[in-house]
């Protein structure tokens, strides 16, 4: 799905989280929102997912103004930084949650839900953990279950907030490839937030560098590396 951000701004009381920013994300792209903490990248992601409303500006999905769409209507697969798995539900119940929450007419039958959950567990390469609780999983497994849960609703886009932030270096490397593979297999427009320039440069097709609520530069990783547009970008990517 093609996403267009048109002069989106957000302030919380007196503090400005986002200056008016504009950005076009082509359908099927894997995009990194890169910046230090407080740069407004998570706020922008949450606005896309419908978890925050912008103070001004518009969001367009496939050309249609979607600024007023509720979080449920957006159908954005959202992976939270802490994963936010439902702690009282098994892995199966977690992944099936979105399908069971559908209105009766659109809800798949029980057997179909089970089949889809099994398929998603294959996709994240964790078959056979259906009956475990989140507390019984490692950090990397939790991240993948959160990804499967987000994919289960057949989302129109995938939004990930620091998806690798809570993992150790080795697992982080593995899961980067995992995300790339899932992105390529599903073809979903995917946006992830990170403060790690290596991660952004290695994984993304398009990197959006942000600072102080502004977009500093948008470009392919090699372009940003070779031609940083501002002193901030130069300093941040070489740090």
């Amino acid at each position, binding site marked *: 799905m093609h996403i267009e951000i048109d002069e989106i701004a957000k302030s919380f009381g007196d503090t400005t989280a986002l200056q008016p920013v504009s950005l076009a994300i082509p359908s099927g792209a894997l995009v990194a929102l890169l910046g230090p903490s407080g740069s407004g990248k998570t706020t922008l992601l949450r606005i896309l997912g*419908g978890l925050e409303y912008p103070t001004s500006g518009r969001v367009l999905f496939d050309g249609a103004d979607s600024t007023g769409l509720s*979080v449920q209507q957006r159908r954005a697969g*959202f992976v*939270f930084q802490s994963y936010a798995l439902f702690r009282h539900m098994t892995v199966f119940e977690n992944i099936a949650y*979105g399908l069971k929450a559908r209105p009766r007419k659109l809800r798949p039958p029980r057997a179909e839900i089970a089949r889809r959950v099994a398929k998603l567990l294959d996709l994240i390469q964790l078959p056979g953990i259906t009956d475990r609780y989140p507390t019984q999983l490692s950090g990397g497994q939790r991240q993948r279950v959160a990804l499967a849960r987000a994919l289960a609703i057949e989302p129109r886009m995938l939004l990930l907030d620091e998806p690798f932030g809570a993992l150790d270096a080795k697992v982080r490397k593995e899961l980067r490839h995992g995300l790339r593979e899932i992105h390529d297999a599903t073809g979903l427009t995917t946006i992830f937030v990170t403060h790690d320039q290596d991660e952004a440069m290695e994984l993304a097709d398009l990197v959006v560098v942000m600072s102080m609520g502004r977009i500093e530069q948008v470009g392919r990783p090699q372009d940003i590396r070779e031609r940083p547009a501002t002193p901030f970008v130069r300093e941040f990517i070489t740090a």
Partner: protein
Amino acid sequence: MSETPSSHRPRFRSATEEPAPVRIGLIAFVVLVLAVLVLAPLGVIFSEAFAKGWAAAWKALQSKDLQSAIWLTLVVAAIAVPLNAVFGVAAAWLITKFDFRGKAVLITLIDLPFSVSPVVAGLCLVLMFGANTMVGGWLVAQGMPIVFAIPGIVMATMFVTFPFVARELIPVMIEQGRTEEEAALTLGASGWRTFLTVTLPNIRWALLYGVLLCNARAMGEFGAVAVVSGKIRGKTATMPLAIEMLYNEYLSVAAFSLAGLLTLLALVTLLLKSVLEIRYADQLAATRRH
């Protein structure tokens, strides 16, 4: 440490371990305090109740006034506790999941019943709804008196027990944060479904503790209820009020039998809590923070 330098295998002690005399001393102190302040009075209640035998205690409880007191207490708790559970959940949900102006004032208001004397609370209700006030007079004319009747007793009980559920839930809900609810919303669940399938299961233990505490206090409330009920024997006297009246009339077997029954009701709730805790120990562990 007591090791001598000559000992070849030094014994390592963990940093949080205390020497034996300190441990034994502390345990003895706690046991002593519990025995004097909790166990001894409990024993006295039952020994006084059965001073003239089981039959006398049983017969005392059969009296019409006592039956009425028992029934009234159960009815009042059955109305006040569920209502306070709903209000408590709503208040805790509001305070922890949303940001709004005047939140600090609301938290203070919820705590108010803890700081206001129950007798004062009861007097406030009498001044608001007494038969000689505008509102109270009108209600009496409609045949629905508040003061010296069950509605007043329920209101007084609710006022006094209002903070229990909310107070129990707020820290738990703050600790759990909002992300699980947000996740449910992004997965397409409505607000109500999110509440039922995510919020409520996550707070059920805190809610249960809150309800049990609320229930114990509701059945035992004396001061506020004493003011609004008018202590009409056989009509508006709850168990605690009846106990006091019987005791003042030197009917000690009846007074202590009723007191014993009230104590048993409290013990049953405690037992219920422990049974549930043991039964669902694994779930309890699973719902703790990751």
